[in-house]
């Protein structure tokens, strides 16, 4: 039996002015391109959870051309983010019309199960661990159920834990391979639509398992650059140090997402640099403390805001760059936020900055609150959940002000001169940084 695993990728901005602007700004599209070209770790995990006796085929949506005949499978599983979910549904409908049963899973499906169920023979909620083996057994016996619930805890423990089948990526031109060391994040920011929505608590993979996966991932690529598919890798500093000591000899360059508290620990920063960490993405969200009020239930980010500048400087002085993320349209922000973000980026020396618009992903606390307050522009806008399209009425500015402010800020931050200035800053950092050095050997 042949199972087709189809990953959706390639988010496109819908607002025409922004899409056109992106073409002309060198710094705007870089991170978007990276995200769009990441493989689906969820489907590689599904592949590993599939028992022997099935042929498993991994495809990206780009492999499936709309006009072509459908590739023959006995079962199709599709995983998608919100922005591409309608394309996923359309593909699922095509396969089902051809008599091929379809399974849908992923974050959006977990948050909007009833909607997804209309386009699938079966849906998988939460992670695939604890669900997919049962689903396959039922499929084999001709009694596929409409809904399976995967584990929300204990996913990194035997017998449910598996190493994703990275070898399915062999021969494909990925710039980065994803590996997960944790699932969830205790900060619980209102807007977050990441893995915390499919977990009951923060879960960290044992160090030996994480390192084993990294070795498996690096074996399939000539130039290993790993992206940790975590929401907050270094919550546990002791775990982090053990992980980094084990990672350093493996000779990979890598990227992850974490919070600003990594700057609290000098030893952790030294180990980060020595292990090949090239960049951490940190959700700064807003340049002022006022803008962060109510962001997370414990007001952690607001309390940390005063340390942002010093923390960024300290992290980057170790040769690890910070990609600072900002969200525009937060309730306490006024149009003054646009120059504030620009000035903060310049003053902080951030090597990279990711500027997005507040996005009420369906099923998140933010979505429910804005719906209650009557501030969603339309009830269903999934293809506009791109992080750049405005889908709600901001509290202290108009939609037009937010859209034009975003475009203004993009021109200010991502123009050639500013990108060149940040590139120069990075080069000068590494020239004077013993942990990284200007002669890195590239770790390949």
């Amino acid at each position: 039996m042949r199972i087709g695993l189809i990953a959706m990728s390639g988010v496109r901005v819908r607002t025409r002015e922004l899409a056109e602007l992106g073409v002309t700004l060198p710094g705007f599209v870089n991170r978007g391109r990276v995200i769009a070209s990441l493989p689906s770790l969820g489907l590689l995990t599904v592949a590993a959870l599939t028992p022997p006796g099935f042929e498993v085929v991994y495809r990206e949506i780009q492999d499936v051309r709309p006009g072509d005949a459908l590739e023959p499978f006995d079962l199709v599983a599709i995983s998608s983010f919100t922005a591409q979910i309608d394309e996923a549904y359309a593909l699922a409908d095509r396969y089902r019309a051809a008599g091929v049963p379809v399974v849908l899973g992923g974050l959006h499906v977990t948050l909007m199960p009833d909607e997804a169920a209309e386009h699938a023979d079966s849906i998988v909620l939460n992670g695939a661990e604890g669900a997919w083996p049962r689903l396959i057994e039922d499929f084999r016996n001709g009694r596929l159920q409409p809904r399976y619930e995967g584990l929300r805890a204990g996913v990194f423990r035997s017998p449910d834990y598996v190493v994703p089948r990275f070898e399915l990526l062999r021969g494909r031109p990925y710039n980065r391979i994803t590996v997960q060391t944790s699932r969830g994040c205790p900060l619980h920011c209102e807007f977050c639509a990441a893995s915390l929505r499919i977990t009951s608590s923060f879960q960290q993979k044992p160090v030996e398992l994480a390192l084993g996966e990294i070795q498996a991932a690096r074996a399939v690529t000539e130039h290993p650059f790993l992206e940790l598919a975590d929401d907050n890798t270094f919550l546990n500093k002791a775990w982090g140090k053990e992980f980094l000591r084990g990672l350093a000899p493996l000779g990979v360059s890598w990227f992850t997402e974490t919070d600003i508290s990594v700057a609290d620990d000098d030893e952790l920063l030294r180990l980060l640099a020595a292990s090949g960490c090239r960049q951490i993405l940190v959700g700064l969200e807003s340049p002022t403390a006022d803008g962060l009020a109510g962001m997370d239930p414990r007001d952690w980010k607001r309390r940390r805001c005063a340390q942002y500048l010093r923390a960024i400087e300290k992290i980057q002085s170790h040769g690890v760059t910070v990609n600072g993320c900002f969200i525009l349209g937060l309730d306490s922000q006024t149009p003054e936020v646009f120059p504030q973000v620009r000035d903060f980026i310049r003053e902080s020396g951030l090597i990279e900055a990711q500027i997005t618009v507040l996005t009420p992903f369906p099923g998140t606390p933010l979505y429910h609150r804005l719906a209650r307050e009557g501030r969603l522009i339309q009830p269903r806008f999934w293809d506009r959940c791109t992080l750049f399209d405005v889908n709600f009425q901001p509290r202290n500015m108009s939609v037009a002000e937010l859209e034009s402010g975003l475009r203004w800020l993009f021109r200010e931050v991502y123009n050639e001169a500013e990108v060149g200035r940040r590139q120069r800053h990075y080069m000068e950092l590494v020239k004077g940084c013993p942990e990284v050095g200007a002669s890195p050997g590239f770790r390949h």
Partner: protein
Amino acid sequence: VSATWSGRDIEAELRAVLAEACGRDVSRIGADVDLVRALGLDSLALLRLVAEVEVRLGVRFPDSALSQLRTIRQFAEAIVADREKSISPPCGESLPVRVERGNA
């Protein structure tokens, strides 16, 4: 051509720096081949390579040119441009850059 250096010298210097920094043979990489693809670099690794070239060859590229340094020819031309700033050739002529095409 300058009495002390030429485009070919620059190419040789450049290839030596690349080979050492990347730890691999770069002699077969063509002058117009994208180094990011040929060497499997990410964007930050490319910048570290540019920094290494600056340090080793004693040059400084304009910030506005950093994004455009992707091939050996582009590097060589930028090095020449930088050196031209400090060395005035006779009769104000530009120094020619001749970069050999590799096999890749």
